[in-house]
């Protein structure tokens, strides 16, 4: 048994091969999966194999990939489409970018496999315009694949043809939702529509369409190369294989990690992540981005899979994992995410357009010290109705950061509304910086650091903060080497 906690399947070529050279990909059995499939397997075999592998969508929902392909295969249409969702919009997540930048051919190969399985001849990669390097490398990869006859007409002499085109996002988080994404590819505003009909029935240009996320696809060729049984032997009962996480925030080893499903949060944060920066205490780990929730310390030993994360009020999401230390204000974090979702709401449905706006406004009120206990009741009630009533996944999951922080960190909310204090000292309206005259030696560091120039005092004499001018940025607090500045 290895002592190593990480296992790379989706990332197996990242950081190993030159992504701009197809030969390096081929040297590592690249395009062998599709070659074997085209030579030996029927589309039904391919779907069966994927079902057997237990692969589930890595974009967040966790829908079984084999089933998804089967639906699209069974639905009739003049044309069918495969879409790769590379609109990684979760702030603080970069799994998909890394795969696209490090191993673009694996995505192309996977799309051809999916195309063969459902009987589609065209694929689109919907990628954020904010990822210029990934776009560049994909362009090169597509060009090379065409050159070698691994894309285009009559792939490897099999008679099967498949084309891939890039489509660019333009900065809309909601386009991660598949119906919104399809609207965007069609040249429309990225507003989602109600499902059903699902894309597998009526997708791009009303044709059966399968939308898969980048990481899901990165697993596909690997599954055929190593065999579905082997893949299915990794992970937990309901969640097979590995999951890539973008580990970020107040953790020492910020980075991209790939672990077998079932690894615990503790292993990721402390063993792989090397613990909290600055030796501070752990407070929470946020998974699932703006759709997910904050997981407190008591769940650090929960083995990660789709179901267990959902049970504790969060979700797998696409793999953003933000570590928060003891200095993090959970109300502020909830407000941050709500600000994000209200900014990114498409504005179509009432629940999200106005509902989430009202949630955000209530949180703003609370962080400004103007909240009441009644607001907390309303916050929870409205949050739950929005979850129940919104049109799409973005709106339905938007209240999660509020609801999960309320569930686990209710005392912080209470402190904000009842005692009018921010325990973490983050919410500036509730924070006061003061200089302890006994400890201050008059080194002037704080005065120099202050961007508002509101600290005065002579050299070697205790300094003072002009509270009216203070912008509560905390620069002085960070600058002081003598613990002379207190935050309350």
């Amino acid at each position: 048994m290895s002592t190593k906690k990480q296992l790379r399947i989706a990332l197996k070529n990242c950081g190993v091969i030159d992504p701009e050279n197809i030969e390096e990909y081929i040297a590592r059995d690249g395009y062998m999966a599709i070659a074997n499939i085209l030579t030996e397997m029927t589309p039904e075999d391919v779907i069966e194999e994927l079902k057997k592998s237990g692969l589930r969508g890595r974009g967040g929902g966790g829908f079984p990939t084999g089933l998804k392909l089967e639906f699209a295969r069974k639905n009739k249409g003049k044309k069918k489409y495969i879409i790769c969702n590379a609109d990684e919009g979760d702030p603080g997540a970069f799994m998909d970018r890394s795969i696209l930048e490090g191993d673009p051919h694996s995505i192309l190969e996977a799309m051809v496999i999916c195309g063969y399985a459902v009987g589609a001849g065209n694929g689109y990669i919907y990628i954020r315009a904010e990822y210029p390097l990934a776009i560049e490398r994909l362009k090169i990869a597509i060009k090379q694949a065409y050159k070698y006859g691994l894309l285009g007409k009559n792939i490897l002499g099999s008679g099967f043809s498949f084309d891939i085109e890039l489509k660019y996002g333009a900065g809309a988080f909601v386009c991660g939702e598949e119906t919104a994404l399809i609207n965007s590819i069609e040249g429309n505003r990225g507003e989602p529509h109600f499902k059903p009909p699902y894309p597998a029935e009526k997708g791009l240009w009303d044709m059966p369409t399968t939308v898969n996320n980048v990481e899901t696809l990165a697993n596909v060729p690997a599954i055929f190369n190593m065999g579905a049984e082997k893949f299915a032997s990794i992970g937990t009962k309901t969640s097979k294989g590995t999951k890539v996480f973008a580990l970020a925030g107040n953790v020492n080893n910020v980075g991209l990690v790939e672990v077998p499903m079932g690894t615990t949060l503790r292993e990721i944060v402390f063993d792989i992540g090397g613990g909290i920066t600055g030796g501070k205490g752990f407070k929470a780990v946020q998974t699932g981005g703006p759709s997910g929730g904050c997981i407190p310390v008591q769940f650090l030993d929960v083995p990660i899979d789709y179901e267990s994360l959902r049970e504790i009020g969060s979700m797998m999401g696409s793999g953003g994992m933000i570590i928060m230390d003891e200095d993090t204000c959970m109300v502020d974090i909830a407000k941050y995410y709500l600000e994000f979702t209200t900014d990114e709401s498409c504005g179509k449905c009432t629940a999200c357009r106005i509902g989430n706006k009202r949630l955000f406004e209530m949180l703003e009120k609370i962080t400004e010290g103007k909240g009441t206990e009644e607001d907390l009741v309303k916050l929870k009630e409205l949050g739950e109705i929005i979850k129940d009533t919104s049109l799409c996944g973005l709106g339905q999951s938007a209240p999660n950061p509020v609801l999960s922080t309320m569930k686990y960190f209710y005392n912080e909310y209470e402190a904000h509304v009842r005692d009018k204090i921010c325990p973490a000292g983050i919410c500036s309206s509730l924070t006061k910086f003061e200089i302890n005259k006994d400890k201050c030696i008059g080194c002037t560091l704080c005065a120099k650091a202050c961007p508002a120039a509101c600290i005065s005092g002579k050299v070697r004499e205790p300094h003072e903060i002009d509270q009216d001018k203070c912008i509560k940025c905390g620069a002085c607090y960070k600058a002081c080497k003598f613990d002379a500045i207190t935050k309350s």
Partner: protein
Amino acid sequence: MCENKFAEEKFRELDGFIEKVGASEGNLIEILHKAQDLFGYLPKEVQLYVSRSLGISAAKVNGVVTFYSYFTEIPKGKHVISVCMGTACFVRGASDILVALEKKLGIKTGQTTKDGKFTIDSLRCVGACGLAPVVIADGKVHGRVEVDDLDNILVELESGVR
């Protein structure tokens, strides 16, 4: 005069691009990307031009332009400073940086200084979370930025040193 000629050339280039990708509704967003690359922003004339070239209503083109945050109808300043507000940067103090920058330049996020020199933008994660907090100044990524670094970044931009 000179500017007109410039614009004419840009429209010609846009024409060439539209011809290359095809004047269909499905290529609208791609064409708008190209137009923004060429003109720096998407003024009304450019949107109307695209609308007529593709045979789709101006309202629809404008609806798309205003939906996506990547598109802008307002010209940006000479230098664009973007603060990443992704979660990784946020928990590492990106909002302090943004506030300090706004104060320094006397403008709010999304605005341009009166002299047209600087524009402040906030971004949703550029994927450089390992370097959080991140500031991007005219395309150059500055990692692990602190409030104190901002002056240097601004000076660097103004002096044109890259």
